[in-house]
Structures are given as structure tokens and as C-alpha cells.
């Protein structure tokens, strides 16, 4: 079957989708967006967390056909999504994420350091606050759980700009990390929330 939906702010058409196929499979295997990780396939680990119409969900438990006409944000589009949010645009209204650019993306500290300001609109927008905070706090080891954690943590800060430790623990309770012991991840979320707060304070918003 064919599924039409929006991914990271841009329309997408997936063809020959098997009816029992998950959104996660479509993203990874049909769209070439492997940022969302495939691990438990039963909603236990949170590695495949994406936003579906803004709501964090496990992409492995969403049937692809259920996404018809809906809006999905993956970790590949997270930086643009965060930039659009800060600029007050609806998701995708400021150009969204070019899937080809997302596929070409490589971790590059130099480029990341230049920040979003140097990136042309609609292209790679550097790192979002939460992504930079994960790097700075040392919250990444093997990196497998990181995409899901980033999407979940970004949604938390969007919903609760100054989260308590209990808020953070609850929001990330569906994301398993087997390397870090979570402490650095909690540090990263606190750091991102503090940076977002000082940025909004700076703009007088």
C-alpha cells in the first residue's frame, strides 16, 4: 500500500509498504533515515522514539498505515524542528529538513561549533540545544539510545521548560541506556533546560 505523510516538515510518499510494517521500518529502510534505532521492537527501550503529530511515540509500535496524513519528526529533523520552534514557525513552515542533507550529515565538531546561524535555511541547522548539551555533558557513550533520548528530552523541555529531576526521570523512563548509568544524561537535560532558559531570557521573551 501507499502511505502519504510528512517527515521532518516535508511531504513524503512511501510505496509498496507492507500492511503490517511499522513506521520505524519505513523510516529506516525505505527513507534512509536510520537515526531512529531498531532494538527491542516492543516499546520497551525507547530507541525509536519519534514525534507523531508532536507526541512522543515508539515508532516500532505505530503501523505505517496509521501515519497517513500525519506529521512525523525524527532525530534527523530535531535541530530544524527546534530552530523552527524557537522562531515561532509551525513544524516544517520554515523549510523542514532536506532528507538528502540529513543522509549526508556527519558529526563535525567544527561545523557544530559555528552553530545554526551559518546554515542556509532548509539545510542542516547545526545542533539543537539538547544535542549540544548531550555532547558537552558527556551523556553519549555507544550512542545507540541517544536519538530516542534526544527526541524524548527535547519534548520534555518544550512542555516543561524548567523540569524538576522527577520530571526528567519520568519523561525518560521509557528510554533504556545500558552504558552511562543515566547520571550524565540527567546532567545533559538540566544543562539544555538552563541554556534554553538563558536564551529566552536574553531575547526578552
Amino acid at each position, binding site marked *: 500500500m501507499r502511505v502519504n505523510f510528512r517527515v521532518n516538515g516535508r511531504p513524503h510518499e512511501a510505496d509498496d509498504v507492507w500492511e503490517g510494517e511499522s513506521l520505524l521500518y519505513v523510516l529506516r529502510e525505505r527513507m534512509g533515515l536510520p537515526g531512529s534505532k531498531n532494538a527491542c521492537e516492543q*516499546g520497551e527501550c525507547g530507541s525509536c522514539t519519534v514525534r507523531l503529530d508532536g507526541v512522543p511515540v515508539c515508532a516500532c*509500535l505505530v503501523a505505517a498505515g496509521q501515519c497517513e496524513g500525519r506529521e512525523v519528526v525524527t532525530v534527523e529533523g530535531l535541530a530544524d524542528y527546534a530552530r523552527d520552534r524557537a522562531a515561532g514557525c509551525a513544524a516544517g513552515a520554515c523549510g523542514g529538513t532536506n532528507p538528502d542533507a540529513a543522509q549526508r550529515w556527519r558529526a563535525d565538531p567544527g561545523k557544530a561549533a559555528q552553530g545554526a546561524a551559518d546554515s542556509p535555511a532548509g539545510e542542516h541547522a547545526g545542533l539543537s540545544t539538547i544535542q549540544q548539551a548531550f555532547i558537552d555533558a558527556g551523556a553519549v557513550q555507544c550512542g545507540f539510545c541517544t536519538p530516542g533520548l534526544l527526541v524524548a528530552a527535547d519534548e520534555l523541555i518544550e512542555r516543561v521548560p524548567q523540569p524538576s529531576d522527577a520530571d526528567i526521570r519520568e519523561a525518560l523512563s521509557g528510554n533504556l541506556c545500558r552504558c552511562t548509568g543515566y547520571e550524565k544524561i540527567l546532567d545533559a537535560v538540566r544543562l539544555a533546560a538552563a541554556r534554553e532558559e538563558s536564551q529566552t531570557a536574553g531575547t526578552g521573551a
Partner: protein
Amino acid sequence: MDFLRPASWEEALAAKAEHPTAVPIAGGTDVMVEINFDHRRPAYLLDLNRVAELHAYEVGEENVRLGASVPYTRIIEDLRTELPGLALAGHTVGSPQIRNRGSVGGNLGAASPAGDSHPALLAAGTEIEVASVRGTRFIPVEEFYTGVKRNALEPDELIKTVHIKKASGPQQFSKVGTRNAMVIAVCAFGIALHPETRTVRTGIGSAAPTPLRATAAEEFLDAALAEGGFWESGKTITPSIARQFAELVSGACNPIDDVRGSARYRRHAVGIMARRTLGWTWDEYRSGGRGARSTEGGAQCA
């Protein structure tokens, strides 16, 4: 496999009548696991996401009419005053990602004895509105569970609305598991005080082939509270009454040994949860509903 996408309730009923083997899918938190692991290959998936009324709820005079697909997150955030027991139980479901998708209709459709919402539905008092092209019927929740992962639905029927009595007194839910998140119940217990009828109702989860009420324990407690004038005086329930209540709740269990716990442990733990949750709800009743224990921040450790 075919993917059926009805745009309305009428279309959904027509599709289910035409394809009685179609598996309804809403949040997908159970169904997709079975498909991902190749445990199930239904000929038809019946996607209910476009049926708007299933995602809506209404608060009436006596009941909350909860659409079958309303996710747990909505129940926890919007309905914890009206349905405190269900909000507490819902807060123990999976993780935020799962609670954003999973629903009471899914719990009822799967009819697993370990479903978290069942004890709360039993304790509050609930009727399930199911429908087919042939018509609508209301099934008391006690009669809805017919066996392990079996329910009273006919092949052409779908769950539409869950009619749950609004709380008129304190309610509690307690669950045993290895951690707070992402845990299937080893066993669970729900309790609701109904001061207007001077009755107490219970629900036991994951300690028998189906979720069930501990009716003998309820009858004993109702009589003991009436006889002692507890509802009027609001005095503390005596330890001997609480103990006998707990023993009768334990006795209502019919558990099995499995990887999550032994039958003996389950029977014991359900009794402990019964005694403690009775204490918590009664304390709240005595303090005039200003109980220290609220649904804020999730379920208490029993």
C-alpha cells in the same frame, strides 16, 4: 494482509461485520508487538485512529463516558478527579511513549489478566458499551472478562465506550513489579470507597485467569463497617477488620507460578496491597477527602 481505514464509527462496524477476523488496532502497543515478533499475521488490520468519537470523553452526572481509544496520558492529565483509581493505574502503564498511545479499550480488547486498568475499572464500577451492525449492548465489566486473554466480544463487535462511575470517595491502585516504569504487573490491586452506598469495591489483577472482584472480602467489609458505624464516626478501621479483609482478598486469588512470581507470593502480596490501600483510602475518607495521598506523581509504593 489488508489495512482497513474506516473514517467513521459506522464504517468501522461495517468493516468488522464484513471481516470478523480483522484485528482492531488503535495505539498498537499490543498488536504491533505481536506483528513485529511474527506471533500474529491477521488477514486484516482495522485501524481505528480516524474514528474521532473513540478518542473523545464526556463527563456526565454519574459516569465518565470514555472513548475506547483515549490514551492513558489524557486520563492521567484530564480525568484524575473523576477517575482517580484509573488515573493511578494508568500512570503505571509502560512509559510516556506507551501511555501516549495505549488506551483502556486496548486493555479490554486484549483482556490480559495483567492489564493495569482492569482493577481500577472493577473497583470503580464500569460498563462496556460494545456495538456491531446488529446493535449495541452494555456489558458489566465483571462479565466482560471470560478467560485468559478472552473477552465477551462477538467476532463482529467493537468496543466503543467505557462507562465508568465517577468517584464519590477515595480510590487507590497498587501494583507489584520490578521497577516503576515499563513493567508488567506481577500482581495488582484496586480499591474504591463508595460512601454514598456505604460500600467498598475491589479489583484484583494478574492473580487469577481473569481480573476479578474479591466479592467475599467486599461483603465482609461492608458488613463490618456498617455494624461498627465506621462510615458515620469516621474512626480508624480496627486492625482485625483490616486483617480479615486482606485474608479474604488473598483467598479470592487463583494465581499461577510463572517467571514473574510464584502463586504463593502473588496471593500474599495481593493481601498486603489490600490492607495498605484500604488504610490509605480510609485515611483519606476520614480527613474529608483531603487525603495526603493524591494521584500526583504516580502510584505510591505499597
